[in-house]
């Protein structure tokens, strides 16, 4: 009998429904563009004909609704709780609700027996939501509904990292650049959202039974619906996509309102909303970017000095050089003349198809050149380097960092620090004695760069440039913190709630992006830390607000070349010029006219990396394969295999085969510290009489087998894989699994203590508590310490003696043998290390100590980095092979973890070897490496060595890894050339 109004104010939209006895009288779904109170008022006014003169109940819900609720004194209901109200009333036989909103993702699990329910909301590290899909659509240069349509024609699903939007983005970009079809990518994006929901939210609870899907994205995108239904193996009866999916929260709020019996009338409510002050500001505010117009004018004038003359192709004749920077989101192209002037430039989004864009540009250039201008060199850099180089026969490719250094040195020969913030990535490096010294690339989690501002601007109804301009004179910029984009989104939400203006948000975003670069990526401590001759570049710095924030933050003036966005291309052109070729090999106008390009995707299958290869076919049947890690699929004669200790160790450990000894099979999950301890446990258990069964080598498929039982989505990937290994063992039919808790590691007497990290130490207990399948088998996860061999004998007998009826002497014997086997294994590793080093020296190869944890030899964890290394003609040695040769002595941290002590000693040894470099592999989410990386760097740099870090995750993309390795190699080459030069000079003088 009563009218009831439910108001749902989410992060981006306001949804209002008015119901009377289950009948919907009014509904409205609109974006509120941060004008929360005003928008609510506007919508309510529209409902005046329904509400005027009546009493009605009302409730507000939604993440941005609290302010309005307070202002108008309307009851507030938490949004998931509101959804629960709706479901209980409308579809009480629901088991699970999945609701995706603009920035939130939620799962509700119902217990039909008790009527109780359990909710999961996305934590502070998750992004697979509506905002994410919008962002991805922007990336593909399609409208969101177009993305949906495209996805329905897909033939192939790519693996796209699902943890957070930024990760996914860095997976998609290379696919785009490699020319994968948009349909496949669109469907893969939806699959990533599905995976994110399952891993990130379900956290150990299976999604089964009747599932109700709510929220905007699940309402609008048929492709997303399809991915969910297929992945969760649902059918028409078990998947419900209701009409009211958009209004679920507001409907829930209206039900809540009825129950609460609040009573309003139209006039009072409107009056309350009108007069309510916008909420008091509590978000921290920052200093304005510019105090006044004069300050801005001076700033502009200063930066206008870093100019390159822009000439016209039509007015030029003579030799010219082409530089192409095929970046992740944009393609840049310049033509420079003999005196380094720019004759032509192009800067635009690559719209997912850089090949076609470059072709058109080259045609235009060559057409204008005619007979007057001779192209004498061409060079390509950036993500799409290989593809473009191959497609158009450019003369050379060069790693991005080199290209940027070339360009930056042109503006300031004394440059000692280059920072480039592009659409998708942040690159920066120091220059010491003319050599690239310390490259920092943004790790996948912090790329809150240009494209973020662009997407954000669009969501607010602006284009990137005008959005940024808004911030220039903002009076109270909002402090949005300095972490990844997902966090910024929620900080913006907070600011919006508090009524921040669009200007303040714009300025705040610029400052955040800047701080993100400085503190999260570069990790500068002080302004002196960066350098005194800083050149900033990249498309994002064309934005004056960002440039200004940067200068304010580092407290010094920097150089931003007028061609900030073109620096990579300009550097490439300068590099092409240095080649001093007689003529460029670049395609001719005629060849370009007849150029065709198609691409398809295949799975390689030549080894267990199972790379997704993109096969590009160009006119004339030429092919270019990308996505490969090694040379195998290219069909080339394989390099004579260089020593690769990752492969060697893996093969050695995998060759351990169980022997039937009377006690039956015992399964061991092959991951984490088992990569270190397995020789011990294998020998020990085999001697006791068990047939040891190892789980298979990790694969993506193995990971997926049990990803729904992972309770903590921020734990490292090596740990997450353990769930799959358990399932793998069970599939092999073992009835007994042995996976001991080991807080202590072997004591190598090299540090202050000899712990394992907490995750390695206790993960067996986590599996026990989260994997129901373990209830059907005997799961042995007791505590053992191998650091006290004598005591181990005793403790092992207490454990195994009673349980399996083995005698004390046998346990003692087995333990002694196992310790001997383990020692022999360590010795063998060192011998193999020596063998590899000797081979390298004999053949004049560089040696890389690829340093990480024992489990980094798992191919699913390292994604084939080892093979990539050997493809660069490097000999690969593991840290534990050389750790014994170094002695770092006292380090500046508490040296209490065995694996980490090895890192320090290996680093120390490398500093004494001129032909060795150390590259550290770090798993994302490894808290301990926050400590070790700084220390390893310090050890290396104190002796003048370069430090290179490769941060890896479930992301299957080696793009950033390649840049680092190539830059390292380039830096080594330059360093050596310099040393030679110095040596010559010295000799010359003497």
């Amino acid at each position: 009998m009563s009218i009831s109004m439910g108001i749902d104010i989410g992060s981006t939209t306001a949804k209002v429904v008015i119901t009377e006895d289950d009948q919907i009288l009014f509904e409205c779904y609109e974006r509120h563009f941060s004008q929360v109170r005003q928008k609510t008022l506007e919508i309510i006014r529209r409902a005046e004909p329904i509400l005027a003169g009546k009493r009605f109940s009302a409730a507000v819900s939604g993440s941005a609704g609290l302010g309005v609720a307070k202002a108008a004194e309307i009851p507030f209901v938490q949004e998931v709780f509101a959804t629960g109200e709706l479901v209980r009333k409308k579809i009480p036989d629901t088991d699970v609700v999945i609701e995706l909103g603009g920035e939130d993702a939620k799962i509700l699990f119902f217990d039909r027996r008790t009527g109780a329910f359990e909710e999961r909301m996305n934590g502070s590290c998750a992004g697979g939501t509506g905002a994410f899909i919008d962002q991805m659509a922007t990336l593909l240069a399609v409208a969101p509904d177009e993305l949906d349509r495209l996805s329905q024609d897909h033939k192939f699903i790519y693996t796209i990292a699902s943890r957070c939007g930024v990760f996914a983005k860095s997976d998609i970009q290379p696919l785009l650049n490699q020319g994968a079809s948009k349909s496949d990518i669109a469907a893969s994006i939806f699959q990533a959202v599905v995976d994110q929901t399952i891993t990130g939210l379900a956290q150990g609870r299976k999604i089964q039974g009747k599932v109700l899907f709510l929220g905007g994205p699940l309402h609008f995108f048929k492709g997303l619906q399809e991915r969910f239904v297929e992945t969760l193996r649902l059918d028409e009866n078990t998947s419900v996509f209701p009409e009211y999916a958009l209004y679920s929260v507001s409907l829930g709020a209206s039900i809540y309102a009825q129950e609460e019996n609040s009573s309003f009338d139209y006039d009072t409510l409107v009056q309350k909303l009108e007069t309510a002050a916008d909420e008091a500001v509590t978000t921290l505010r920052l200093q304005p970017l510019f105090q006044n117009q004069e300050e801005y004018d001076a700033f502009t004038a200063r930066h206008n000095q870093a100019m390159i003359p822009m000439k016209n192709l039509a007015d030029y004749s003579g030799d010219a050089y082409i530089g192409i920077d095929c970046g992740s989101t944009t393609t840049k192209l310049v033509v420079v003349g003999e005196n380094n002037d720019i004759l032509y430039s192009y800067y635009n989004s690559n719209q997912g198809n850089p090949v076609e864009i470059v072709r058109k540009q080259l045609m235009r250039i060559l057409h204008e050149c005619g007979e007057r201008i001779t192209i004498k060199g061409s060079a390509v850099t950036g993500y799409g380097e290989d593809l473009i180089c191959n497609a158009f026969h450019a003369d050379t490719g060069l790693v991005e960092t080199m290209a940027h250094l070339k360009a930056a040195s042109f503006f300031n020969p004394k440059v000692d620090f280059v920072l480039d913030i592009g659409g998708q990535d942040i690159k920066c490096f120091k220059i010491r004695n003319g050599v690239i010294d310390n490259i920092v690339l943004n790790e996948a989690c912090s790329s809150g760069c240009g494209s973020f501002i662009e997407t954000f601007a669009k969501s607010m109804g602006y284009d990137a440039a005008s959005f940024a301009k808004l911030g220039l004179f903002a009076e109270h910029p909002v402090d949005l913190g300095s972490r990844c984009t997902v966090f910024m989104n929620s900080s913006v939400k907070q600011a919006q709630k508090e009524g921040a203006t669009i200007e303040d948000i714009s300025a705040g975003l610029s400052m955040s992006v800047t701080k993100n670069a400085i503190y999260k990526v570069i990790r500068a401590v002080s302004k002196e830390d960066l350098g005194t001759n800083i050149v900033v570049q990249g498309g994002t710095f064309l934005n004056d607000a960002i440039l200004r924030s940067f200068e304010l933050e580092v407290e010094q003036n920097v150089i931003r070349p007028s061609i900030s966005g073109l620096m990579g291309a300009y550097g490439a052109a300068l590099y092409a010029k240095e080649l001093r070729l007689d003529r460029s090999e670049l395609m001719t106008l005629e060849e370009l006219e007849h150029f065709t390009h198609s691409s398809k995707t295949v799975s390689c299958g030549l080894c267990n990396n199972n790379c997704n290869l993109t096969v590009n076919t160009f006119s004339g049947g030429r092919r270019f394969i990308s996505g490969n890690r090694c040379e195998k699929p290219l069909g080339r004669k394989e390099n004579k295999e260089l020593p690769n200790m990752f492969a060697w160790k893996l093969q050695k450990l995998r060759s351990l085969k169980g022997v039937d000894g009377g006690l039956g099979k015992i399964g061991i999950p092959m991951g984490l510290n088992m990569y270190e301890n397995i020789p011990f446990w294998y020998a020990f258990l085999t001697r006791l009489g068990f047939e040891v069964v190892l789980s298979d080598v990790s694969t993506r498929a193995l990971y997926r087998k049990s990803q729904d039982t992972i309770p903590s989505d921020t734990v490292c990937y090596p740990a997450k894989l353990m769930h799959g290994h358990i399932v793998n063992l069970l599939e092999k039919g073992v009835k007994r699994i042995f996976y001991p808790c080991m807080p202590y590691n072997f004591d190598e007497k090299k540090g202050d203590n000899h712990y394992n990290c907490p995750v390695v130490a206790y993960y067996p207990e986590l599996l026990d508590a989260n994997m129901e399948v373990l209830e059907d088998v005997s799961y042995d996860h007791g505590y053992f310490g191998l650091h006290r061999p004598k005591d181990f004998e005793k403790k092992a007998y207490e454990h195994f003696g009673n349980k399996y009826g083995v005698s004390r002497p046998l346990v003692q014997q087995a333990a002694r043998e196992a310790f001997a086997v383990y020692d022999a294994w360590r010795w063998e590793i060192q011998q193999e290390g020596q063998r590899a080093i000797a081979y390298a020296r004999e053949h004049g190869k560089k040696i890389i100590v690829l340093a990480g944890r024992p489990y980094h030899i798992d191919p699913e964890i390292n994604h084939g980095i080892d093979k990539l290394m050997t493809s660069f003609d490097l000999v690969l040695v593991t840290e534990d092979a050389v750790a014994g040769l170094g002695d770092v002595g006292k380090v500046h941290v508490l040296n209490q973890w065995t694996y980490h002590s090895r890192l320090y000693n290996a680093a120390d040894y490398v500093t004494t070897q001129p032909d060795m470099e150390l590259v550290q592999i770090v798993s994302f989410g490894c808290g301990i490496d926050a400590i070790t990386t700084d220390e390893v760097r310090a050890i290396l740099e104190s002796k003048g060595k370069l430090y290179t870090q490769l941060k890896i995750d479930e992301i299957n993309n080696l793009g950033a890894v390649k840049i680092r390795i190539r830059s390292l190699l380039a830096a080594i080459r330059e360093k050596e050339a310099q040393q030679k030069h110095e040596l010559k000079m010295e000799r010359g003088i003497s």
Partner: protein
Amino acid sequence: MAEIIRDKTGRILFTKEMKQEFTILAPNMLPTHFKLFKMAFALHGYKVVPLETTGREIVNEGLKNVHNDTCYPALLVIGQLIHALKSGEYDLDKTALLITQTGGGCRASNYIHLLRKALKKSGFENIPVVSLNLSGMEKNPGFKLTFGLIKKLVYSIVYGDLLMLLANQVRPYELEAGAADRLVDRWVNVLSEEYKEAKNVTYRRVKENMPRILQDFADIPVHKTEKIKVGIVGEIYVKFAPLGNNNLEAFLHGEDVEVVVPGLMDFVIFKVDNRYVDPEIYGGGKLKHLIAGWFERYLMGWQDDMIAAIREFPQFDPPSRFNRIKELVKDYVGYGNKMGEGWLLTGEMLELVHSGTPNIVCTQPFGCLPNHVAGKGMMRKIKEKNPAANIVAIDYDPGATAINQENRIKLMIANAKRMQKMMQYNELVDMEPEMKETVSEA
């Protein structure tokens, strides 16, 4: 002025001269407890100042000075100390820093080294840093944790835990807003006065004071109503420190719930218990085993005394004994799980669930390693075995906004309220049908 003397590793020693002249700055975790710690240290000749600064600048100092992937407590603690050094309030030639070191396999043992690195980077390399630990790491001639001092710190924990517990139990029901907090302040003042003389800080005095404190709290006029109880557990720093958890206790108080915070004593006993258990699991260390056992019994004795004192006042709920928590956790994780909060975290959640506080906020720094297992890793099993358990895990880091955290906590509270309603309804089910009708209509 005290001379800077280094040990053979190059560490600046805190000398006896420094003890005379220096102010020792320490991070703060529990405001009430730390005020008493300060006085206890003063009795032994140390001028310790627990910092009470707050604000975004502290986070910013932390971000600038510590690897940003380091856990949030390290970032805050180091940020707070450096912020204080830069404030100009302290004579840098006469200032030292104090930081705890647990010595476990968690990253927290490394805070002191990260602090020293940060000091060096910021140009404060001549500031001595004192490690407060029970493992005998990093000895200093001018700083000794004597048994006399330890005893007084233990008394301070007893007082602090008692005051915190009583305030939490009275605050939601007090008729006059702020009465409980004022009483805490008054008692801190009374005790601070007493702490000026060592003869007042004795076993007997603590035993005498406990009933007095209890009586004072019992005298606060209250109106007892049925309120939702919400427990706070988690990583020790973000669990307790308002700076670390965005004033979680105050927020919950504003949500009209009764807050239940297990005290600091359990954590201290837990850390001692680890040393007791270690030799049992791995062998060795007989003497250590004995000493740890003795010390553990001493601490448990204090806990028992406090519980006994509270039992005299039936209006207050005493905390569970340590051994009870230890017993509860048996089927979940092993006693070898000792890094960070280890099994105690799982145990505290279980204890809360079993003692009528099934609604829990489990706080942890973003990416906290031990809590992957003992916190988030155990929630499924706890809920499965205890269907009433209503736990929300909240991550804290420099980028996490209060709105997201509060939204999730509100959801947990909304859920709790619904469960409470349901339980009341279920009670009704057992009544006569007509009666049920009347009640539900009302």
